[in-house]
C-alpha cells in the first residue's frame, strides 16, 4: 500500500481531472492547484497549456513552479527554455474575445452551495458583513469564460458547503440559466474535490452529488460536513487512492517543497 496523507489524495484527485492537450488557468494565490497542474504535466498530461496567474505558458521543465516563481535564479534559467511565454497583457486582451477560450480553470472558493454558486465576497449583510472575504478576483470571470471549472476545498465543513451562498460571486451550474444567457459553452463548475470526497452535478436537477468518497473518510462524515442533503449514488464508489508513481512524482518533482500544505489545515 502506498503511504500518503489526505492532502496528497486531494492533490492527486485534482490532477487526474486534467486531460492532456487542454489549456487552463489558475490564480497565483492557490498553491495546491498549481501543484496538481504540475503533477498532471509530469505524469499523464505533458501537453497541458497552463496560464499561471495569467502569464506562464508551458515552462516545459522538470522544476516545480513555485521555485520558478520565488527563486530569481530559477526564473532566469527557466525563461529562455520556456516553450512559450505569454505576458498577462495578452490574456487580459483576448479574454471573452473570439481568439481563445480556455478549457478549464481551477478555483478555491470560500463557500460553495448545492447549485454550484460560489461566494468569495461576504457572509451576512453585504454592507456590514459578519465576514468579509478577500473578493473574487477572477473566479467569477473564470466560471463564465472557461469551458468548465474544477474546484477544490482543502477542508470541507458546514461553513464551506452551504445550502445557498450568502452572496453569488460566481454563478452556479444551472444549464437553463446558461442557455438563457448565451453562456451554454461555459458549463460552470463540473468537479469539486475536498479532503473527504469528490463531487459533481450529474443529477437531473444539476444539484451537487457525491461522485466518490476518499478511502480515508466515510459517507457519514461527508454528509455531516455539508449544510444540505447530498445526493449519494448507490453503490457508492471509493476514490482511487494515489498510486506509488503519483506519490513519487509528487514528492520528488512536482512539489518537493510541500507547497501544497500551504493550503491545508488538518482536522
Amino acid at each position, binding site marked *: 500500500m502506498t503511504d500518503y496523507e489526505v492532502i496528497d489524495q486531494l492533490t492527486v484527485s485534482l490532477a487526474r481531472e486534467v486531460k492532456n492537450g487542454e489549456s487552463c488557468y489558475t*490564480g*497565483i*494565490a492557490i*498553491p495546491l492547484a498549481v501543484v496538481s497542474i504540475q503533477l498532471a504535466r509530469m505524469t499523464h498530461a505533458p501537453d497541458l497549456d497552463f496560464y499561471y*496567474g495569467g*502569464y506562464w505558458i508551458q515552462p516545459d521543465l522538470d522544476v516545480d513552479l513555485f521555485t520558478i516563481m*520565488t*527563486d*530569481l535564479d530559477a*526564473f*532566469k534559467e527557466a*525563461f529562455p527554455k520556456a516553450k512559450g511565454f505569454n*505576458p*498577462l*497583457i495578452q490574456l*487580459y486582451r483576448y*479574454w*471573452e474575445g473570439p481568439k481563445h477560450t480556455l478549457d478549464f480553470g481551477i478555483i478555491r472558493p470560500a463557500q460553495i452551495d448545492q447549485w454550484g454558486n460560489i461566494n468569495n*465576497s461576504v457572509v451576512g449583510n*453585504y454592507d*456590514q*458583513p*459578519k*465576514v*468579509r472575504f*478577500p*473578493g*473574487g*478576483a*477572477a473566479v*467569477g*470571470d473564470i*466560471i*463564465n*469564460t472557461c469551458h468548465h471549472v474544477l474546484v477544490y476545498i482543502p477542508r470541507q465543513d458546514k461553513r464551506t458547503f452551504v445550502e445557498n451562498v450568502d*452572496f*453569488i*460571486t*460566481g*454563478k*452556479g451550474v444551472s444549464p437553463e*440559466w446558461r442557455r438563457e*444567457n*448565451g*453562456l451554454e459553452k461555459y458549463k460552470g463548475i463540473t468537479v469539486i474535490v475536498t479532503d473527504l470526497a469528490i463531487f459533481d452535478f450529474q443529477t437531473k436537477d444539476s444539484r451537487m452529488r457525491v461522485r466518490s468518497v476518499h478511502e480515508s473518510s466515510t459517507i457519514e462524515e461527508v454528509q455531516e460536513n455539508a449544510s444540505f442533503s447530498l445526493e449519494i449514488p448507490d453503490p457508492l464508489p471509493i476514490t482511487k487512492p494515489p498510486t506509488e508513481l503519483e506519490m513519487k512524482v509528487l514528492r520528488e518533482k512536482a512539489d518537493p517543497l510541500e507547497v501544497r500544505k*500551504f493550503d491545508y489545515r488538518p482536522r
Partner: protein
Amino acid sequence: MTVISNLSAIVSEIVLPNTKIAIGGAAMFLKPMEAVREIIRQQIKDLEIITLIGDLDIDLLCGVKAISVLESSFIGLPMIGMAHNFRKSIEEGSGLVFKEWSELSMVRAFQAGAMGLPVTTVRSLLGSDLVKVRPDFEEVVIQNKKYIQVPALNPDLAIIHAYAADSNGNVYYPKQHILDDFSLLPAFCSKQLFVCVEKMISNQEGREIVEQGHIPMFSYLDVDYIAKTPKGAWPTGFPPEYAGDMGHFMTYSGMSRSPETFQLYLQQEIYKEDTN
C-alpha cells in the same frame, strides 16, 4: 514637461485628500510600495484608491485609515492569508466604502477609461450578485445578447513602479520583465502618471534597452512625475530585479492582527525613515 524630483516632494504636491489614485502592480508584484509608505508618513487621508488586486499596499492604507473609497477585485495576501486591516475596516463598519469588481470587469473599465469611453460591457459578470450591490453596474441587451455594462475608470492619478527612466522622462523596463499590464492599465486611464523607478539611466543606456527589443513602456509624453526609489517595490516582487519577500509578508500577516503590533510594524518599517 515631466517633473523629475524626490519622492517626498512629489507626494506632497500631488497626493491630496480626495484624490482618486490608481495603484499599479498586483498580487504582491510591482507595487509602488515606497510611495505608499511615503503617503503614510505624510499622513494623507480621505483617499480614493483603485487597484486591480490589492495586498500589503491596501492593507497598510486601511490600517492607518487613509482610504475613504476603495475599488478592487481582491484584497488579500496571496498564499499567506487575509488582509486583516482591510477585513476589519469592512466588518467593523468603519465607513470605508468598498466598490467591489470582478477582475475582468475592472480590466475592461481601465481599458475603456484609456480609450475615453464612458462605459464598457462584460459578459463574465452575468449572474453575479455584484450587479445587485453596484448601482453603477447594469444589465443591457445588445444585438440580442445580454451584457453587464460597467462604468469606465478615470482616476486622477496613477502611481506605478518601473525599472528606469532617462532625464527626458522616458520610462524603461528590463529584459524578461513580466506582468506589465498591471502597470499599463492604470497608467493609461489616469489623468496624471507618477512613475517610481529603480534607477535613472542615460538616454544612451535607454536606447540600448530599446535596441534589445524592449520598447520604452512609457514615453516622456505619458509621464508626469518621476522619482527614484531604489528597491521601491519591496517587499513586493519586481522580477527579474528582485523576488517578492515572502518572509516579510508572513511577518506582516502576524503583526497586522492586533492594533498594537500593527503600530509596532509602522514604527519599525515606515516611520523610522522619517527621522533619517
